[in-house]
């Protein structure tokens, strides 16, 4: 039960982190420059953006839950389970970020999820 809860934190923390980071980056705007001074200015905006920082916090929670669950559960069980995050993140992108998920993208994402699960098996 506690293992399931920790894996849920790993998956939801990672997906939530990605959604918040995307929200922050979209708020800042499209980066289409490689000019160092421009990039430095953008970097300051990024690390002071609330959504971006919330995303980093969620990812840190996910990472520490991952380390904690590995202290008692097998990596070969935990890692395939975390491949679920591809589906959860896509749901977050659709319902929170309002991205349009075409059928071909959905099919591709499901294949990626299956492939990652296969790769993480022992």
């Amino acid at each position, binding site marked *: 039960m506690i293992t399931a809860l920790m894996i849920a934190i790993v998956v939801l923390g990672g997906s939530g982190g990605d959604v918040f980071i995307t929200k922050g980056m979209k708020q800042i705007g*499209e980066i289409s420059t490689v000019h160092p001074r421009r990039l430095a200015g953008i970097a300051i905006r990024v690390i002071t953006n609330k959504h971006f920082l919330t995303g980093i916090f969620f990812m840190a929670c996910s990472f520490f839950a991952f380390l904690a669950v590995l202290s008692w559960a097998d990596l070969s069980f935990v890692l395939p389970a975390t491949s679920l995050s591809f589906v959860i*993140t896509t749901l977050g992108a659709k319902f929170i970020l309002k991205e349009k998920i075409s059928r071909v993208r959905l099919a591709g*994402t499901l294949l990626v999820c299956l492939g990652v699960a296969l790769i993480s098996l022992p």
Partner: protein
Amino acid sequence: MKTALTLIVAITSQALGNVYLTKAMKAITSTGSGTNDFVSTAMHTASNPMVWLGTALLLVFFLLYSAALSWADLSFVLPATAFGYVLNVAAGHYFLNEAVSPARWAGSVVITMGVILVSRSSARTIKAEGELFK
């Protein structure tokens, strides 16, 4: 094109970063007698240039990943960067001489098919709210 280039450099940095970190950590734990001592392992890790190179490459990955999210969909970038798993398997096999099971190769093929499908969809379906930094 911009999205493809950014993500290719990102996942190549990630795979190389993981290779360097693995090489460094394996070297650290296979030498010296004090490997059970946490402090000495930490000191060896922090003073190993390959650890810093690997960490820097992973940072490059994260910066490029975040940059791509400033214009492209998360639902595009995330599955597309999963191709990094395939590069990691290949790098482990060729550079670190790791044994790769048939299930891992099969997984790599399935991920590649998935990434090809995802890359056929449009990378951006929403607009960034912020300004355009040219």
